[in-house]
C-alpha cells in the first residue's frame, strides 16, 4: 500500500519548510573561511585545485556524531516521559525513531571539510601541526561556492547546548504537528506506510542537525563545514557517483573530490569580475617562516600571476605549540 498524494505532499511540504528554516541559520556566511592544514595538505589542495571532503562517518573524532545522536535520543525520550497527551500514533512515531533514526540509511552520505572563522588560532595550530609547519588557507566562498564542480553548501556548527536543544525540540514539534493533522484526515487507513515515510523524512531532517552540533567545549573553533550530499547505490543506480578511497590507521575512508579549478580559471579573466578565491594564506608557527613565504608566494602565483598574494605569518611563537 502507498500513502495518499495528500499525505505525501504534507510530508514534502514539512521537509521543505524545515530545511528552509534550517538554511537561514547558515546564511550569510563569513566572507573568509580558513582551512587549517599541513604542508602536504596545502600542496595537495593548491596543486590539484581541489578539496577532499571526508565521509562524515569516518571523521577523525567519531564522538562528534555520537554527541549529537545522544542529544536527539534524549529529547525524544524526554518527550515520551513528560507528555501525557501524546496520541497512540505520536507515541509510536517517537518510540520508533528514538533509537533507530539513521540519516545515513538508504546509502546517503555526507562529505565534509572543516573551516574556521579565524585564521590564526593557537588551538588549531596545536591540533593540526603540533610540531609547526601548519597553514591556514583563507577562502572567499561568496562567488567560489557557485563555481565548485559539485553542489556544496556551507554549514555553521552550533555549540550552544540550549540552542541545540531548541532546534531538536522544534523539529520534533513540527513532525508531531504534521502527524496529528494527517491522522485526523486519513485516520488509520495508511498508518504503517505513512509512519515509514515520516520516519524517513525525520531521519533526513535530523541528519542535518547531527553534523552541525558539537560539544560546547569546542566553541573556540567557530567551525563551518563545506558539505556535499551524495547517494552511492551502484546496484540499483548505475549512474551514482562513486566516492574515492584512502586509508587512515588501518581504515578505508571514503571521500569526495570537489574541484575549484573553475574558480581559479575565471579569476584570470579580467572581464568576469571574479577575484582569486584564495584571499589569504596564513603561515603557522614555524622555524622557517620567511623561507616558506617565498615558496608559498611562488606556488600561489603559479596558479594566477595577475594577483597580489595575501600571505601572512602567524605571530604566535613556535614554543607555544
Amino acid at each position: 500500500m502507498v500513502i495518499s498524494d495528500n499525505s505525501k505532499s504534507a510530508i514534502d511540504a514539512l521537509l521543505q519548510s524545515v530545511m528552509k528554516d534550517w538554511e537561514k541559520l547558515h546564511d550569510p556566511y563569513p566572507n573568509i573561511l580558513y582551512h587549517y592544514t599541513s604542508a602536504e595538505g596545502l600542496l595537495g589542495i593548491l596543486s590539484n585545485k581541489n578539496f577532499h571532503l571526508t565521509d562524515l562517518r569516518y571523521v577523525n573524532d567519531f564522538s562528534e556524531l555520537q554527541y549529537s545522536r545522544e542529544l536527539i535520543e534524549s529529547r525524544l525520550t524526554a518527550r515520551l516521559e513528560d507528555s501525557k497527551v501524546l496520541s497512540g500514533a505520536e507515541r509510536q512515531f517517537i518510540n520508533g525513531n528514538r533509537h533507530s533514526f539513521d540519516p545515513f540509511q538508504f546509502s546517503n552520505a555526507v562529505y565534509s571539510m572543516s573551516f574556521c572563522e579565524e585564521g590564526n588560532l593557537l588551538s588549531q595550530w596545536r591540533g593540526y601541526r603540533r610540531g609547526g609547519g601548519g597553514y591556514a588557507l583563507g577562502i572567499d566562498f561568496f562567488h567560489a561556492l557557485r563555481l565548485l564542480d559539485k553542489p556544496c553548501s556551507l554549514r555553521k556548527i552550533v555549540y550552544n547546548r540550549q540552542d541545540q536543544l531548541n532546534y531538536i525540540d522544534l523539529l520534533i514539534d513540527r513532525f508531531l504537528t504534521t502527524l496529528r493533522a494527517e491522522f485526523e484526515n486519513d485516520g488509520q487507513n495508511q498508518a504503517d506506510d505513512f509512519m515509514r515515510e515520516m520516519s524517513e523524512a525525520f531521519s533526513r531532517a535530523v541528519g542535518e542537525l547531527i553534523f552541525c552540533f558539537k560539544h560546547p567545549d569546542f566553541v573556540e573553533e567557530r567551525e563551518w563545514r563545506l558539505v556535499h550530499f551524495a547517494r552511492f547505490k551502484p546496484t540499483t543506480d548505475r549512474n551514482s557517483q562513486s566516492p574515492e578511497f584512502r586509508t587512515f590507521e588501518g581504515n578505508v575512508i571514503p571521500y569526495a573530490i570537489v574541484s575549484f579549478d573553475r574558480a581559479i580559471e575565471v579569476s584570470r579573466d579580467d572581464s568576469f569580475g571574479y577575484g582569486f578565491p584564495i584571499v589569504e594564506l596564513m603561515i603557522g608557527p614555524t622555524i622557517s617562516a620567511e623561507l616558506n613565504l617565498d615558496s608559498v608566494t611562488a606556488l600561489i602565483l603559479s596558479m594566477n600571476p595577475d594577483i597580489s598574494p595575501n600571505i601572512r605569518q602567524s605571530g604566535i611563537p613556535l614554543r607555544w605549540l
Partner: protein
Amino acid sequence: MLHRFNLNFESVFLNVSQPPCHIARTHPAAAHLQTYRGRVHFGTMSTNALRKALSDMNDATTEYRALIGGLLYRNVSKPIVFNDKSLISFTRSNTTGQLAVTLDTDLVENDGSVIASLRENVITLNNTTDFVKLLGLNRQAVMHKQTGRIWCDLRLTPDNYVYELALSCILLIAPTYPIVLHPDRTKFGTINDNAPPNWLGGIFESKTKGEAGAFRIENSAMYVLNAAFENLGVGIDISVQICETPSDGD
C-alpha cells in the same frame, strides 16, 4: 617588495601605448553558471531609508582606506578621474562611522543601457531582467544571470582590517576604453591581453595632503597591480579621446 614614491609635485605622466580592446562576450564558465539555483537574493533600499542614510553622511575624502580594483587608496580625494570627471567618491556616517562609497557614474552594458547604480554603499538594480543582486554578509554584488559575470562587488570589512571596504566593478563609460576595477587588479583600456603589469608594487604617497596626482594616462592603456595611493588629491587621472563603439565584428 613595495616601492615608495613621495610625491610633492603635480603629477607624473606615463604614456603606455596599448590599443584598447573591448570585453569578450562569452566565457566557458557561463554554461555552468546558468544552471546555478543557489543563494540568490533580491532587495533594494526604500527611498525613505536611502534619504535617511544620506542625511547621516558627511564627506570622508580626508580619512579613509579602501581597496578599489585591488589597489589600496588611503585618503585620496579622487581615486580615479576619467576625462576630468571623478568616478568614485566617499562619505562617512556621522553616527556609525561607516565608510560609504559612491560610483559617480552608472554601471552600464556595452550598448550603454544602465545596469545598476551604487550610491552610499547601496546598489540599486535597474535591469532586473538580465541581472541579479547577490547579498552576503556585508556584501553585495551584481551578476549577469546568463553569463555569471560579476559587474560590481562591494564588501565591507571588519574594523581591524587594512581597508574599510573593497569595491570592484567594470566601467564602460567609453565602450572602446573599458575601466576594469577587478578584485585583484586594475586595468585601463585593456583586457585579457596576458601582458605583465605596467606598474607593479608601488606606494604613491604625498605627505602634504596636497592636490598632487599619482600619475596620468593619456590616450593609452595601462595595467596596475599591487599599488597603493596615499594622501593625494587624485589617484589615477585618465584622459582619453573617445572612439566610436566597435561593431560586433571587430
